């Protein structure tokens, strides 16, 4: 590491700490406190009722289903894509890498609309789906599809740089000794990328749970059927049922906190990973 000029002025340090601390407090901590305080405003009983409400539980179930599906699909996809793009050279490689980032640059609302226009009754595939009694739009498959779409770059984005920087030498060495593709992946590649993979899965899951825009457009807000937790919060808000809205939000906050803890662990492990 270069021995640069270190700013030893303590005032600068404390001012920076204060500014960042204040910013974090106003932007993150304060809203969290508001959520918890408002959720418990009318006492435990109301809180319990709000989160054990049948629609809230169904929304939680769908959120978990959509998130788990998104993480599962995107993990498999992300692994394949990053392996392909980091270990093989072919025409159109750059284009493929750029395409994977599309969900980052598209507004989720547009993504939802795109799915309606593709799979809805008036959409390109509408006739075919109707003839085979497959319902995607305003149904659970649509919610899952939208969640997968919005979150699909996460695992890839975490894995790709790690795999790319790893180089091919160790894999070539193993291949020259006669190891087959899967053995090479299991023994050589995977141990190197496992923490990055976990980190990507966690980010993907976190984003999937909070997804609102795309899901909102494609779900049709059918209570107890296609409502996810964020949508449920919105409905409660619109009904001026603020306590319940905050109570349900606190569930999401709880999930996020769990994810944050898992994330810190994964990040720490990722940094700690051995090697030279």
């Amino acid at each position, binding site marked *: 590491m270069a021995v640069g000029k270190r700013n030893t002025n303590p005032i600068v340090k404390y001012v920076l700490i204060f500014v960042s601390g204040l910013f974090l407090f106003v932007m993150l901590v304060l809203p969290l406190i508001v959520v918890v305080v408002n959720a418990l405003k009318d006492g435990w009983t109301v809180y319990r009722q709000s989160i054990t409400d049948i629609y809230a539980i169904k929304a939680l179930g769908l959120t978990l289903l959509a998130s788990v599906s998104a993480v599962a699909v995107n993990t498999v996809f992300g692994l394949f894509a990053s392996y392909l793009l980091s270990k093989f050279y072919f025409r159109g490689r750059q284009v493929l890498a750029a395409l994977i980032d599309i969900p980052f640059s598209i507004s989720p609302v547009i993504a939802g609309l795109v799915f309606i226009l593709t799979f809805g009754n008036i959409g390109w595939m509408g006739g075919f789906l109707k003839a085979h009694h497959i319902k995607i739009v305003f149904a659970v498959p649509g919610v899952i599809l939208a969640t997968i779409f919005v979150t699909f770059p996460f695992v890839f984005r975490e894995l790709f740089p790690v795999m790319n920087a790893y180089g091919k*030498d160790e894999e*070539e*060495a*193993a*291949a*020259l000794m*006669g190891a087959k593709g899967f053995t090479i992946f299991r*023994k*050589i590649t995977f141990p190197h990328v496992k923490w990055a993979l976990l980190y990507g899965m966690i980010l993907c899951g976190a984003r999937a749970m909070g997804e609102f825009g795309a899901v909102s457009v494609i779900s049709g807000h059918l209570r107890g059927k296609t409502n996810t937790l964020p949508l449920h919060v919105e409905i409660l808000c619109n009904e001026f049922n603020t306590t319940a809205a905050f109570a349900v939000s606190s569930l999401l906050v709880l999930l996020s906190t769990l994810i944050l803890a898992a994330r810190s662990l994964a990040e720490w492990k990722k940094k700690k990973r051995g090697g*030279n």
Partner: protein
Amino acid sequence: MYVEMRQINKAFDGFQASRNVCIGVEKGRLAALLGPSGSGKTTILRMIAGLDRPDSGDIFLNGARVNDLPGSKRGIGFVFQNYALFRYMTVAENIAFGLKVQKRSRQEIQKRVEELLELISMEDFGKRYPYQLSGGQRQRVAFARALAPDPKLLLLDEPFAAIDAKVRRELRAWLRGMIERVGVTSIFVTHDQEEAMEVADTIIITNLGRIEQIGTPKEICQNPQTQFVKEFIDSRRFEMFWEFWGREREG
């Protein structure tokens, strides 16, 4: 000839890395591919190993054409420039890897690993991980790992490049001694003429993807056949070198 390349051509994205390459290395020889960087020496090594495919031309090992044979079936050991030790495996696991893939029995693997650790004088290092080793130790492990499955041909890509100058000289002598002891035909890549002269008994000089000259160190020094070789080989230094080392090796 144990290794033979005939009329090999290879291009990467329009860059001609090999032009009509013809080389031969006899059994039991220790050959150096010597040339400036970008002259195509590593490409030649990788094609012999089966890591890259030539665009045209034939490669023969022990008289059999191996163009279509995967690298793992060619009976070669390969030492990578940065050794490419498996960083999540111990030294012993690294050496055992090729044998495990071949599904050898556990006792056999254990015996061979111990044998090789002894050969490289690292008996007590079996449980260490690569990042706990010095550069020279890593090279020795890479050498042992490449030798574990008893290859007929050993290929080494810039084996001394990642080692600081002080230890390098010592390791050269060590490697030469080891290869002589094991008696395996070997080819190594280097851009350092001193290294090539000191270690190899055949030198293949490459330039711009072509082979400029093949010969013993003495032949190349005394009778450079092209202008490039004449300029590339610092013959005065070479003469001095020959005074010290050559007689001993010829005798």
